[in-house]
């Protein structure tokens, strides 16, 4: 991931909304009011997106939300029903895929079955020269090395396992050094180890060569780890476009909050506004009143409906016995909820524990075994208010 991500490590930056204007040369790919219908249904619905030059831009979203369709529109395999796709400010309408200088990795690999692995990787070099000072063969060897299949050049794609095929598809797309790389779940068939290594490589190549990359993944952790910005799509439209940290910590909508990472979303009525930047909410489905930090700018009054979320890792759990005994149930100013353990899933590093709290469930993290009644606490500052609706 290198220093680049390290440098950005602690700043959310001011780039949550990208603000280039239409002629901004830094805009590599722009979708302007793009809609694509299949019969009745709009697979992509009035999408506006701008992807910066050299940016690593990720699309995430539930199955069927239009990610693949968006990529296909950018690559030029589909013409939008309405709206415009622009590359560096120029409308691409009517420009065939081969003239768009995009590299594509399909969800289904799409290796040419009649060519060897080496021929597959070399195919794009028929239409673009390999990087300066490199022969075709060297380039192919380099890319096979990159995807960890250095000896596969003479094999038949069909004799490769799913993951191996996917890696070849990656190498093939990268070989001609495209300006824009479109990756549709390029690593869905790879194990975590390999995926990490490959995505580090892709990131390196991408940032070295300044390739604009638009990446579709269903692996949200991956999306967060690798992207400059993430677009979270739902039902054909992006609900939030922002850097990973923002998406994770300040989800713009309830959908984003629930889709990216585990989360506990609460909705309820504001019963008090104890201080500037703080509200107290009577949460639906539970019987406690919870205190929640709120952005100073948001005007709230008693009676409003508020939706907020707290990540499982911000919920501190203690077994109820403990809580009642040694320690105060919650530090001053904190929230405390009484719940019981419903089930737990061992995830390795942590265990995801589901708690029953009133009518609803809470997700928390645990390292040590947990059972029975527990107390859950969280700091009002760890809550993020998603929306407030005045009554």
């Amino acid at each position, binding site marked *: 991931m290198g220093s680049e991500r390290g440098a950005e490590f602690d700043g959310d930056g001011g780039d949550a909304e990208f603000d280039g204007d239409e002629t901004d040369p830094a805009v590599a790919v722009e979708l302007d009011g793009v809609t694509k219908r299949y019969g009745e249904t709009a697979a992509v619905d009035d999408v506006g997106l701008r992807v910066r030059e050299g940016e690593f831009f990720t699309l995430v979203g539930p199955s069927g939300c239009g990610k693949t369709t968006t990529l296909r529109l950018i690559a030029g395999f589909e013409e939008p029903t309405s709206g415009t796709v622009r590359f560096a400010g120029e409308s691409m309408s009517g420009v065939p895929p081969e003239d768009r*200088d995009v590299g594509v990795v399909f969800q289904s690999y799409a290796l040419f079955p009649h060519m060897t692995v080496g021929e597959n990787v070399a195919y794009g070099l028929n239409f673009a020269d390999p990087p300066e000072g490199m022969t075709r063969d060297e380039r192919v060897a380099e890319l096979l090395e990159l995807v960890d299949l250095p000896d596969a050049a003479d094999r038949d794609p069909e004799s490769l396992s799913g993951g191996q095929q996917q890696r070849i598809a990656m190498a093939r797309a990268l070989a*001609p050094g495209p300006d824009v790389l479109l990756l549709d779940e390029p690593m869905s068939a790879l194990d975590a180890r390999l995926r990490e290594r490959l995505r580090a490589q892709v990131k390196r190549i991408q940032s070295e060569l300044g390739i604009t990359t638009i990446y579709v993944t269903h692996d949200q952790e991956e999306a967060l780890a690798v992207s400059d910005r993430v677009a979270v799509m739902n039902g054909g439209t992006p609900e939030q476009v922002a850097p990973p940290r923002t998406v994770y910590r300040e989800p713009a909508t309830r959908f984003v909050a629930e889709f990216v990472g585990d989360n506990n979303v609460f909705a309820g009525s504001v019963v008090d506004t104890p201080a500037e930047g703080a509200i107290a909410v009577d949460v639906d489905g539970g019987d406690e009143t919870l205190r929640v930090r709120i952005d100073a700018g948001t005007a709230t009054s008693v009676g409003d409906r508020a939706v907020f979320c707290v990540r499982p890792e911000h919920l501190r759990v203690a077994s109820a016995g403990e809580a009642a005994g040694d320690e105060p149930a919650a530090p001053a100013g904190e929230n405390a909820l009484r719940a019981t353990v419903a089930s737990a899933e061992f995830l390795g590093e942590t265990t995801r524990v589901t708690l029953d709290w009133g009518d609803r469930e809470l997700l928390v993290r645990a390292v040590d075994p947990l059972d029975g009644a527990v107390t859950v606490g969280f700091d009002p500052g760890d809550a993020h208010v998603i929306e407030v609706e005045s009554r």
Partner: protein
Amino acid sequence: MTGTDTQRLTRLREGVESHALTALAVLTSAALVVAFYYPTATVLIEAVVVDGAVTLAVFADVLTDPFYFGELARLLSGESPAAVARSLASPDRRLGIVGFTAYQAVLSTIASVALGLPAAYLLARFEFPGRKTLRSLTIVPFVLPSIMVAVGFVATFGDNGTLNAALTAIGLPPVDLLFTLEAVVIAHAFYNAPLVARVTTAAWESVDASAVETARSLGAGPVRAFVDVVAPQVYPAVLTGAALTFVFTFGTFPIVLALGGFQLATVEVFIYRLVRDLSYAEAAALAIVELVISLGVLLAYLRYEARQSTNTRGARPLPRRPLVPTAPTLRELLPRAGLAAYAVVAGVIFLAPIASMILASVTGGDGALTLNHYRFLVERQQTGAAFQVRPWPAIRNSLVFATGATLLALPMGVVVAVLTTRRYRGRTLVDAAAMAPLAVSGIIVGLGLLRGLVFGVEIAGWRIAASGAVAVVVAHAVSGYPFVVRTVSPGLDGLDRSLVESARALGASRARVIRDVELPLVWPAVVAGAAFAFAISIGEFTSTVVLATGADAYTMPVAIERFIGRRLGPATAMGVVLLVVTGLSFVVIERLGGDHRGL
């Protein structure tokens, strides 16, 4: 070479490539117009333009003539549908010539499919030595001149034929097969069952094994998995074969008269007579009727094919089984027993007539074995006058023309296949236009070529005419290219579109993708199409004799026709030459194309 030079060259190449498709489409259309549409139109127009005046009277006469349309004609001439329906239901209903022609074509199609499918099963699902060669040879019957088939059939199924000799020898009563509808239907199946077998084999080989495996894992036995998963994917190909068979047998002419007799005369027989008598108006009207019916069937089929079009390119083809059973279980033995029974039938229907032909070529007038007929060929070659047809130039011309026609038909067929696999309005029209050469009466095409090409057109004081070798090649290509379309287009249609898209994203133009990705992937279909185009050219007669000028452009079928005399020996000898030359050619063609993996 400097960088800019390279760039310029690259740009030039890309420019050429990006227009290649358009250019090919234009050339294809030009070839079609010159060698088919314009010529044919010069004849068909006579149905509606009589003595310079436009009239539908001829048509009306034909359509309301019960001789042609049976009971249907009465409907067309205004009788009540109920009355017509009643008489249609009666046992002595009249079909009319058109009705009868369709009837025998349906029977022939059923027979061809019935005889073709087991062969496809054998070729697609079993491995045995010589499988590929056998597959290559299946196309041979397709090119045999009808007179050769007649000779073979008379010798096999006649009163004194092999079949009756065999039946008598094993104590069974002889059959009186010749000059019946059955004989005609069997002969039609002789021609067309191999066609059905070929197209079906190709589709069968392209079924993805994982679909079958899934069905099996869900509980379907082999038979059920076949019915549910394999059959639906093979079905369109069977229908391709059936539709083509219907069209060919609907337009049948010499075979019905040679093996059935005039009682079984078809529409084409009357077209021939009318053209011979220069009664063009009625001939053209009949030809249009024939065209409409044939094209209707083809289009109905194409509609169906488009609906069925599925991604059939199997990532993994079904593995072939050894022909020799691995274990003596019922499951292993039963299909093979079926195939053995089929082999007997196929032996009688396909091999015996060919064997009889070969035997006839070495049998003298006295019934003794002789090489005289071949000696005749050699003598004709050595001493024949310059204006006479000699065997070697005929062989040479056949091969040269067929090669040329194939090389021309392939790009034509591929371009049309590419055009017809896209979805757009008016596609049916393109389909129809592309398939029309199959559906128009050969006699009409021949006459049209004479008028349109040999005599030429007068344009601005110049008479533009074309005949000779080049014209023959173009005409053959026009006859053969629909087969390329029909074999290639389902494959193209079924290709995973992400393959095409990958290539385009990597920078390949549309034309380049066809060359680099699509054609290699449907290569077996391309080879099959090439084989058909080659076969059509080899077997073509009507337009060859019209366009060939002088003895130097004659082909093997023409030589065969010339060598027909009171005794058929010399002609059959030439027929055997044709058999051998074509058989070898097909083996070579498919070997050349055979390196590529299955469709």
